């Protein structure tokens, strides 16, 4: 187990190193830099003024120097300064993480709390009217574009309540926070729950056909115990992988939801930072997301051992 953990840790570090190289180079390959964007906003280009900005920000240094500077500073906890806001990058990024984390967490909760039980129900009642209805609902969840669904929800909220649940200022209380995040989380969760529901259903159907399930029934175990204790525990292993992938995606991939509901989260900020070629923000935010992804994947792998004792990672 210890050697497994060490190997995984080294692999994570290698992955993060690879991500750092890729994001660093990709950003420089994309046409234009912050100086270009700033002058575009001003509707003019003065070559000498532009050159001064490029030098001031160190963008004319050799690439390897810029990379080493960034990585060296990152190792010391210095995320640099945003080219656009001229504030420390940490000051810009840090407040947005809890915002996206809340949204992602609630969305994940929705998707698991709704997707898993409905998936079980759909499998257990295979080919019944309920199964058909649930499958149609899950298909619609997968096929509806989230921006469209989000706007529909806002329009419905306006028509029904005369108000829309969008972020215009920091919520003042816990309940305000819940109210603010509940609707966008439900919109995102609807799609994720559809995916998890379908996966749970197909995994359950496979497990329900196994001999040990028949044995459990013949031993007189209640149906609920058969479904939720014996079957689900095995069926949920592949679903766990998907939940892990979804969780990783949610933390940095909710650009559409954040835009429609005007939530100042990580995803929207990242897209804006890319638009502005704000390298310190983009590089560090991508690294943060990469850390989340590799960590979640690692935790999912560890969870397998809990869910299925047969799984052990060899010495």
């Amino acid at each position, binding site marked *: 187990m210890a050697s497994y953990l060490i190997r995984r840790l080294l692999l994570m570090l290698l992955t993060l190193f690879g991500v750092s190289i890729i994001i660093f180079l990709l950003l420089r390959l*994309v*046409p*234009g*830099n912050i100086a*270009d*964007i*700033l*002058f*575009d*906003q*001003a*509707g*003019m*280009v*003065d*070559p000498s*003024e532009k050159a*001064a*900005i490029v030098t001031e920000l160190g963008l004319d240094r050799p690439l390897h120097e810029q990379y080493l500077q960034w990585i060296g500073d990152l190792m010391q906890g210095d995320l640099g300064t*945003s080219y*656009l*806001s*001229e*504030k420390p990058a940490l000051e*810009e990024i840090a407040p947005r993480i809890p915002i996206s984390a809340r949204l992602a967490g609630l969305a994940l909760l929705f998707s698991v709390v709704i997707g898993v039980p409905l998936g079980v129900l759909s499998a257990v009642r295979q080919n019944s009217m309920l199964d058909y209805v649930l499958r149609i609902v899950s298909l619609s969840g997968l096929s509806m574009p989230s921006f469209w669904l989000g*706007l529909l929800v*806002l*329009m419905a909220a*306006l028509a029904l309540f*005369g*108000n*829309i649940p*969008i972020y*215009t*200022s920091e919520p003042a209380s816990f309940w305000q926070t819940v109210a603010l995040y509940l609707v966008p989380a439900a919109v995102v969760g609807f799609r994720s729950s559809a995916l998890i529901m379908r996966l749970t259903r197909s995994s359950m159907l496979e497990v329900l056909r196994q001999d040990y399930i028949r044995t459990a029934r013949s031993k007189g175990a209640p149906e609920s115990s058969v479904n939720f204790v014996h079957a689900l525990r095995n069926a949920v292993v592949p679903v766990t992988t998907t939940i892990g992938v979804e969780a990783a995606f949610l933390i940095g991939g909710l650009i559409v939801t954040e*835009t*429609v*509901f*005007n939530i*100042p989260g990580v995803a*929207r*900020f990242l897209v*804006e930072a890319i*638009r*502005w*070629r704000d390298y310190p923000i983009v590089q560090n935010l991508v690294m943060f997301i990469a850390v989340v992804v590799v960590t979640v994947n690692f935790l999912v792998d560890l969870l397998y051992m809990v869910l299925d004792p047969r799984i052990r990672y060899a010495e």
Partner: protein
Amino acid sequence: MKLVRPAALLISAALAVGGAGEAHAQKRGGILRSFLPDNPPSASIHEESTISVAMPFSALYNNLVFFDHTKKRDAFDTIIPELATSWKWSEDNTRLTFQLREGVKWHDGKPFTSADVKCTWDMLAGKTEAKLRKNPRKSWYRNLKEVTTNGPTEVTFVLGRPQPSLLMMLAGAFSPVYPCHVPAAQMRTKPIGTGPFKFVSFKQNEGIKLTRNPDYWKKGEPYLDGIEWTMIPSRSTAILAFVSGQVDLTYTNTLTAPLLRDVKQQSPDAVCAMEASNVQNTLVVNREVAPFDDPDIRRAMMLAIDRKAFVNSIFDGEAIIGGSMLPPPAGQWGMPAEKLSDVPGYGDDVEKARAEGRKLMEAHGYGPDKPLKVKVSTRNHPAYRDPAVLLIDHLKNVYIDGELDLLDTSVWYARMVRKEYQVGLNTSGIGIDDPDVNFYENFACGSERNYTRYCNPEMDKLFDQQSAMTDMKQRKELVWKIDKMLQMDGARPVIAHTRGGTCWHPYVKGVDIPINGIYNHWRFDDVWMDK
């Protein structure tokens, strides 16, 4: 035009400071909420050119003079005092002296003096150690020799030759006075002004907060406790926010005609205005690249354009056809479209014009089986992309086969400056409805915003000639002549002047949308809310 009107100035100064007769109706308090669709690049008005900076941040500053926002049109006769209480031209009209208001303080409590005026304009002229990171309006002040002070309350702008439009430039939103004691870099992130509102916070991608300046020199103002701007990039969400009452005032000029109708349908009480923005869609042609160095080819392109089709299909009827100056009744310097009827592409008979265009192309060996292939470049943004698509369709009528070349925002101006394009479609705003601003920025040799690098020394002389004229009637005639020459020369053919809508809830009072520009009415000092 008489440049010295002391009686009028004194009356204006009294009204600007007092306004006692109006004070009883206004209610105090409340936070005005609006939205911005774009992240402002910085809070420093002198370094920027977009309305996303002028609209939220004008409330922090004062100019020497400003346009009276209660008047519909920004013009010479609507200029009122701000930090200057009066002004006077010298006999030879080359020196403009301002008497400055006493007792004005910067938001950090330091006193405002003539030194602040001097160092602002010295910085704009590049004469100081302190440099702006960007200086988009350097070309405005090419005639400014120096700024001198005579004590703390008098400042003089010394010009190389008469230039009445200097006053117009100083009255525009992009000409606030900056504090000498605050570095230019700080003005981008934590600006200090003398204006009715003080800076609280500017969070990128989130919002801007301003709070009432209790020490504002205009006693009794502002009425609002503060202003909050929320970044809402999704236009649908922003409009829903307005309709639901979470936003009191829309971003200016943001509503197309269909959207404005939609807003009025959902919020019938909303007060809306659809006005000319002084933003133009223009055709840009690289004159240094064959075959566009041939005036016949450029003429053929101009003959292909059906401006009415643009107005109707792209702008839903809400656009104005004219030359480079905004035409009347919105603009004060532009000529009516019928005066341009003999300019290629402006006549009513589109087919006749296109037939002429085809003949020109055929004379150069092009035809239906041998079209001229060209890349039509533009920014990858709907406001640019959609007209570019229509332009390509029109060019087909004169055997020009255009391919849409969408460029990322970051490379658009850089490409134009490096002349790495053939034909393009651009959208640009004119900060002030004034020929000096337009001609010197967009057509004068060497101007950074002269994207096509059009350079005609004879035209430059005409720009200087009209700029120095003090007789407005004669000046207007010359401006018309210049405008027509620019259009005939295809310098930067204007396809249409756009119009845009702004809405606010009926309890918001004191908002006035000008008819000839979008930048200059956002001081918010006498805006109040009746709720």
